[in-house]
């Protein structure tokens, strides 16, 4: 299991479109993906979960990947959330 703390870099935060992009990418990996913000953890492959976190620009989120392709998953998804890996 790998984790990383990312600061959201999108100007309008994780609203519906970025959330959909993230979820589409997350769905490609076998690993379980989780996002944690302010002590709330959601399934990273669920769009409703990400929307519920209501992450704005600058918000800190911990992304966790657990599974056979966890390294690739973490790198790829971290980039979508916060830019540089």
């Amino acid at each position, binding site marked *: 299991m790998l984790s990383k703390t990312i600061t959201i870099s999108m100007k309008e935060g994780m609203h*519906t479109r970025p959330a959909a992009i993230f979820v589409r990418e997350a*769905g490609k990996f076998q690993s379980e993906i989780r996002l944690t913000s302010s002590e709330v953890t*959601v*399934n990273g*492959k*669920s769009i409703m979960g990400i929307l*519920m976190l209501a992450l704005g620009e600058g918000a800190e989120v911990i992304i966790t990947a657990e599974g056979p392709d966890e390294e690739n998953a973490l790198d790829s998804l971290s980039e979508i959330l916060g830019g540089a890996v």
Partner: protein
Amino acid sequence: MSFIEVSSLLSIMPNLHLSVVAGKNGLDRHIVTTDVNRPGLALAGFYKNLASKRVQVFGKGEQAFIQDCSEDELERIIAEFFKYKFPALIFTHDTIPPERFIEAAEKSSTPIFRSSYSTHDFIIQYTRVITEELAPSTSIHGVLIEVFGVGVLLMGASGIGKSETAIELIERGHRLIADDIVKIRCLNNTQLYGYTSELIQHHMELRGIGIINVKDLFGVGAIRQSKRLELVVYLEDWDPSKDYERLGLNEETVDILGVQLERLLIPVRPGRNVPILIETAAMNFRSKLMGYHAAKDLSDRIASQIEKKSGSSKK
């Protein structure tokens, strides 16, 4: 350890008519226990075993005590009492605490509230609400639906068809409580209640269609804010190498927040009608609750038939 901030008392208990009289700076203090304490003994000078982590309720007795004592006595009481860091003091019957008390509370940042309730009613209401707020809780990925009155939690990997199954059940007249994120609270260590998140409540995601609002499409009768969890159904891709339940005699359970819930594992395959299986599972669950266990009953009847046959053949 779960806690709530003292400040949230104002929002979660609006009907207790609480108002802050002093100590606004301490409103971020934590309440960690459901118990309250009436500090009569402490006011009288006995501080051993003082439950200082509890909210202190000043009822008629306590109020009369501090009104009746002399200025010097009050000073002594205040000097000792406010050495402790209480989460909050509550004065019931809408009584305003003495000026010196208010000053001491401001200095020590101890919140003091007034409530128009009587002490008895306040304690009952307060305990009820705080027990819910401090109940162990968690959040699960799944869909919570009420089917024939039974709270069914659908779980399974992303994409297995939980939301699609749920929408079919809603169309058949059942109710959605939460899609995707089910918040769960454990009350009395025996009952689990599932809730929806206010932000995304009534919304569902259906791949290919997108996000829909169930209340808008199906009406108020298709949704519920909370429901007791009674049955857990796991959906998974049919695995030919696995043994799926054939009899229904062994009841598998799953542990959520320390409570055991009956658990069913339903294999999903193209052409299989999952919603009808969920409805049937719910009805069977109710039937068992009412005392009739079909599998056990049949098993018993077969056993006695076998006994009868072998008995007659022995003759």
